[in-house]
């Protein structure tokens, strides 16, 4: 079987779910005739028609609100944010309407909000963001952020079948840069389970999305220096897979967290707290973070390069941590 990109894997998940279940509908800006800004939804309209693939006006609040309303009648809408940065425009719908619906009045909201996120493509301050933590801080939502084609397809299927609002982040740097062979036919990847990408003894590097690849590359370099790093890919940020995190730390006794999100209030802080609560006695060194700067995502390539974590910085931090 031919290897496919992460973008194609996401597209396949949409096609297969819409083919399987007539309650699955898609809506968003330019998703129909044009096939989406990144062509993720290309061909959906031709196959499933304008009742199920809805080109919406530039109205994120209306898109997400309508998706919520549709879900109250039992549909499973998948709403696209053209860039995930624009989810800021419908923050109220997401955090107050969708997220609180089941808790407040027992109305489940089986909606998926998906969109391209992340930097490294010179998109500048409004087309590169990683706004996941606004939503990780919102009870009632689930937040998924895959790093491989296999996971993207399997997790999107799980998200569509989930009875809760799921935010599905698609790292645009990975869309066409990674390829892998994935099994034919239906499979899903459970929400809320991290994956151990590389077993190791000396320290744990915990990451997700594009940085999961940076972490893996760093582990390869560290191996040459005699440091055996374990690489964990979170895959889901809400709910967090505490067991996998704690078990890995209990095994390696050292934790380095890498994320592309900004530093203050990033998920590294939350994970550090979880590890202090659940595995403090097992730690042989400080919990270390390698993250983006606490700035907007800058536009010029040298500035963005400075902003984003890279392999060298991860290796350097791991090297220091390994000395403990």
């Amino acid at each position, binding site marked *: 079987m031919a290897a496919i990109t992460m973008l194609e894997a996401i597209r396949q998940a949409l096609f297969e779910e819409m*083919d399987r279940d007539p309650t699955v509908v898609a809506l968003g800006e330019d998703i129909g005739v044009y096939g989406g800004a990144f062509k993720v939804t290309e061909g959906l309209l*031709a196959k499933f028609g*304008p009742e199920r693939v809805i080109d919406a006006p530039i109205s994120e609040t209306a898109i997400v609100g309508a998706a919520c309303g*549709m879900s109250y009648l039992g549909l499973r809408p998948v709403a696209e944010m053209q860039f995930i940065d624009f989810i800021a425009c419908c923050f*109220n719908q997401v955090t107050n309407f969708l997220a609180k619906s089941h808790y*407040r*009045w027992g109305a489940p909201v089986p909606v998926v909000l998906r969109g391209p996120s992340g930097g490294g493509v010179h998109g500048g301050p409004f087309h590169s963001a990683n706004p996941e933590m606004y939503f990780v801080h919102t009870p009632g939502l689930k937040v998924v952020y895959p790093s491989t084609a296999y996971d993207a397809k399997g997790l999107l299927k799980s998200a569509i079948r989930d009875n809760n609002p799921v935010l599905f982040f698609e790292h645009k740097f990975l869309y066409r840069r990674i390829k892998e062979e994935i099994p034919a036919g239906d499979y899903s990847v459970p929400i809320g389970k991290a994956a151990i990408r590389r077993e190791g003894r000396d320290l744990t590097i915990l990451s997700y999305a594009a940085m999961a690849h940076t972490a893996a590359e760093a582990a390869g370099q560290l191996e040459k220096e005699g440091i055996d790093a374990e690489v964990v890919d979170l895959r889901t940020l809400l709910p967090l897979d505490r067991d996998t995190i704690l078990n890995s730390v209990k095994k390696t006794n050292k934790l380095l967290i890498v994320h592309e999100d900004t530093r203050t209030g990033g998920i590294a802080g939350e994970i550090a707290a979880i590890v202090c609560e659940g595995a403090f006695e097992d730690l042989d060194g400080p919990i270390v973070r390698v993250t983006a700067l606490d700035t907007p995502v800058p536009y010029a390539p040298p500035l963005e390069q400075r902003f984003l974590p890279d392999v060298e910085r991860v290796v350097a931090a791991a090297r220091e941590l390994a000395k403990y």
Partner: protein
Amino acid sequence: MSHSLTREQQLELYYYMQLNRQLEERMVRLFRQNKIVGGLYSSLGQEAISVGSAYALEPRDWLAPMIRNIGALLVKGFKPRDIFTQHMAKYTSPTLGKDGTSHFGDLKVRHTVSPISMLGDLIPVMTGVAMAGRYLGQNIVTLTWIGDGGSSTGAFHEGLNFAAAQRAPFVLILENNQWAYSTPVSRQVPLKHLADRARAYGIASKSVDGNDVLAVYGATKHAVDECRAGNGPVMIEAKTMRMKGHAQHDPADYVPKEMFDYWKARDPIVLYEKYLTEHKVWDAKKKSEIDARIERELDEEQKFAEESPSPPPELAEQGVYCEGCHAIEPKWQRPKEEVMPPKASVSAEWRVHHFGGLDGEIPGAKEVAAEGNGAKAAAPGAKAEKAGTKAAAKTDDGKDSAPRVPFGRGPKDKAFARERRDKRGRR
């Protein structure tokens, strides 16, 4: 006001309005006794709008109340105990004490969506409900309310525009009660009639006397019928007056006394009582019968609420997520095959009916149209051509002769690319 309501129905309108008012008067007393946990928002003087508009809906239709639409909830089949217990944060309330006031709903029987406190957000949500109802073949209409204040939110405009673009079977009642908390309409909107807001979206709208329950009912019934016939959405501005402050804590000193006097003389219940008497729909005996029934019912319902327990503290931790507690089963009222391939499949292209210039006509429309529908555009084959016609019929009401603009990189567009190549070759 002409209407087709029976005598029983006319009396029922009175019953609901008076029930609405008496229920709220009891809640004011409960508030003063510290038995209402949070704020209390009055709909005094606005009962005709809640009751008259909700009364125009059928049981299959959906509504979403705002904070002052207690009367609509009663019409939709909720009990006064639901309102009492919600305000008193009781375990027996529809939300088990997790939320208060009119913030509750029922997906299964009473087809009611719970509001949130942020204004305007129900408009896109009820648009979505309307779209889903149409998709499932349910032939439902959805309805919600917005205040003069809420009509300035982004959600209002995004939602109403989307509803209009989708021709959603959705009715919006703009309840103009003259005050957004302490700010008068004139300082919010430079319009005399807020019904004019709808003109920006190309949808039908009108202003009615919101204190005339029959006028509200009649206008809403007409709007609901229009929506069910596929001519939605419709907006109705109901002019009224908030006769109390924003909530119980607010004495509304900022409202001129003369303004209260003006509207007090137009009290919707007093006006309707006069109508019922003048048109001999009832007599004094009938009125006291209904009033007595309301008192009796409210006594019972209030007693139930006051004797209800508070929720157990551990409930706070439960129910953030649906973990299999709800089975989600849409009610299909059309064959699913219609929305599945191959039936649903279309040719993915736009039809453009207007090139956007100042002169309404398409310059050279005929030639372009002929080309658009001619041999070249038909390249994908007869099957796709047929499907394309279907798509256009569903998404557009324009003429079939409009040119198509293929886009993207689908199979149909290979033909477009070929066509373009041919053209270049010819040159």
